[in-house]
């Protein structure tokens, strides 16, 4: 996980159309999109208002709730704080890109099985975040509750406390947390979710 690795080659940068708009290209769920966008447009608004991908939700628009979580180059991020123009050339995966055709991603299955949702508005962000959590734990990223006796860089076992801490960037007002923790634990136990369609598919 050496920093700097795994990023795609630069495209040479977005092409300015005028002082406030540029033409840029992003790959979303495996599909390349070339658009001319206002520099102010966030990745979240790009997805929702320009590409019709409304799975990523706008809960606060300030990085305080996690409903807009998507995967950028396989890592979870708050898309409401990402300017689209700065993400020219990047690969983005949204909740719409997780399932393999009709076959749900193991985390989507787990959320359904555990009833880990109510109103559903935070759910896409929770699921994308969980995809990121499973990969981060497998890649040895620690959390605040990872014991300091754990060997640096070794995969981290996702205990309930680990899941709670790592999923805390995704608020849920319906209070589905206990079920969400179970769903993430289920997916972690199967091991399928880490190498599932999610991170690599987009």
């Amino acid at each position, binding site marked *: 996980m050496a920093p700097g690795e795994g990023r795609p080659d630069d495209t040479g940068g977005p092409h300015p159309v005028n002082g406030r708009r540029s033409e840029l290209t992003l790959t979303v769920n495996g599909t390349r999109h070339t658009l001319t966008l206002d520099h102010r447009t966030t990745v979240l608004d790009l997805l929702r208002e320009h590409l019709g991908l409304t799975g990523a939700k706008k809960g606060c628009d300030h990085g305080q709730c996690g409903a807009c979580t998507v995967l950028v180059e396989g890592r979870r991020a708050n898309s409401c704080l990402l300017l689209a123009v700065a993400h020219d050339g990047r690969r983005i995966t949204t909740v719409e890109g997780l399932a393999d055709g009709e076959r749900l991603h193991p985390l989507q299955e787990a959320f*359904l099985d555990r009833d880990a949702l109510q*109103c559903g508005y935070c759910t896409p962000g929770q699921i994308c975040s969980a995809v990121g959590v499973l990969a981060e734990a497998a890649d040895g990223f620690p959390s605040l509750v990872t014991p300091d006796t754990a060997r640096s860089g070794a995969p981290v076992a996702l205990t309930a406390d680990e899941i709670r801490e790592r999923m805390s960037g995704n608020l849920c007002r319906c209070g589905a947390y206990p079920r969400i923790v179970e769903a993430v634990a289920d997916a972690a136990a199967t091991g399928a979710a880490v190498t599932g369609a999610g991170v690599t598919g987009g």
Partner: protein
Amino acid sequence: MSHDPVPERTASPELSHQYEQGRPPSPDRPTPHLAPAAPLPHPLGAPSVRREGREKVTGAARYAAEYTPPGCAYAWPVPATVARGRITALDTAAALALPGVIAVLTHENAPRLASMGDPTLALLQEDRVPHRGWYVALAVADTLEAARDAAEAVHVGYATEPHDVRITADHPGLYVPEEVFGGPGARERGDFDAAFAAAPATVDVAYTVPPLHNHPMEPHAATAQWTDGHLTVHDSSQGATRVCEDLAALFKLGTDEITVVSEHVGGGFGAKGTPRPQVVLAAMAARHTGRPVKLALPRRQLPGVVGHRAPTLHRVRIGAGHDGVITALAHEIVTHTSTVTEFVEQAAIPARMMYTSPHSRTVHRLAALDVPTPSWMRAPGEAPGMYALESALDELAVVLDIDPVELRIRNDPATEPDTGRPFSSRHLVECLRVGAERFGWLPRDPRPAVRRRGDLLLGTGVAAATYPVQISETEAEAHAAADGGYRIRVNATDIGTGARTVLTQIAAAVLGAPEDRVQVDIGSSDLPPAVLAGGSAGTASWGWAVHKACTSLLARLRAHHGPLPAEGITVTEDTRQETAEPSPYARHAFGAVFAEVEVDTRTGEVRVRRLLGQYAAGRILNPRTARSQFVGGMIMGLGMALMEDSALDPVFGDFTACDLAAYHIPACADVPAVEAHWLDEEDPHLNPMGSKGIGEIGIVGTPAAIGNAVWHAIGARLRDLPLTPDRTLAALAAPLT
């Protein structure tokens, strides 16, 4: 959420019998509808999976702001920046000059609205600013970015007036409201003062609950479009029927000229119970510009315009005998409303019926301040009221040295204290006993501040919960198609409760059909009208109408000979008659909540270790979705106990905690294993399904259980919510009380 006491008629025994069999009466001839291949598992009480779950986990479920009609424009509101006054100058030129800006609506040019019952919807109609955050303009542009920029460029001048946003127990503006929850704002039974003075054991304590914000994860949003005089809006609402009716009144249209769709709603918790500004503004802007308009309210603006739980200042006095039996009980609350309209947080209501109390006084007083208009938030009245009452009970238990579970059991009334009506069912005592057993309540050392583990002090607490049974008139249509399928149409709303799922189960149960043969259409005002999702009354209200329509349909099918006509058979029923008659019973759900907490004596941080709710809420129709609702309510109660805190800034007049960074709602790490259990409560005096509401009772009782556990942990009684480190540290530093 409306607490109108809308009574009902008890279910006919035949109907109850019918679905208890798990299948319909034997058909007299085979038709696709009446010949299930094999006995079906009983759909009522089955843990059916959420009907729209797949759409929600794949991102396919569309919410109100996720419709973008061709040519759609975007709107961004401009909130007032003064707490009270008048608009004296409006300069929209700079905003209109920005690229892509279509219009700026103000009270000078906005469409005129008819006056109607809800003055919070009289938007952009006059120059008066009743509170900070009140909308004074709306920018409309081709893009979201341009609309926000334009809103920031609108210049508004004000003539300000002195304002007052601070409620106090001795505020000169306090008055007793005429009516609260169908009864008087203040009422007394017996002679409280004399009984309290004579009581051998007493508590006289004050509690405060700050203003609280619902903050559903989906901010209020609407997309509006006028087509040939017909208004279509997608609105984030708990009830599209009411939205349609109010829009019709505001725009002087017939309800048949408006379609309001609320197919998926990202939570509401009361904040979307009635129409909120977004739907009116979107419709106005769409009419003004001739374009479809989308408006999603910015999160930071919500506290100013969508309602909040008003702060409550409580005084609770209880007098009891040495045996613990209550002789005198007074619960008096002070709260605020706005100058726009009166809303009373009915926090003294539960004290009227919870416990034996031969002498009882309950008083609501409020003052109209220059504050945003408060409104419903999950269990309005019960949540703060039971926090105070159940905390006071715990204090009484300490005074009397009686176990707090036992104290509540000793004060369980045989009949509703005010009326003498029997309870349709009341299993609070069973909840306390069973819950205590499950939780491992006993053995319990009642002494506080003796369970130390390193820097932590541990404690346990209990509180009772209650929520009234409510039901309202609803209409439903049931259709049998020629191919053997069924379609139910009712304007219910699924705000995360699982309404689609449970209505499918009810229909399937009555019809004796597999659930996958039943389609349920909800969430549109073009469907038969229904009451909103609120007051924990949705399933009972909608479900009864669905039950009735399906029962009629079944009778029609049984009377029908031969194959069905191509158009199938359709029946429509409503529950006007059933819901019109008062019940001879007092009807409430009950529960008991048990909490274990740890308090870090260095930092004052309180964390909940365990939370267990034991409920008696009639028949649980879907244990899977019901558990989620109970647990979710308890978690909101955890937030109320430990972190949710807003305040009105006395200088500026707005809420100091206006976003999700400042206003803390529980995060995943705050929430331990939370258990919800229920008794199999049979109550024949409710509705044909035998269900009570479950959406709100979870938040009731939980804050007191946690607060009582904190006392047990540290030995200091904290009477102001939330229990944040500043308060617990101060208490830990003080000598034990």
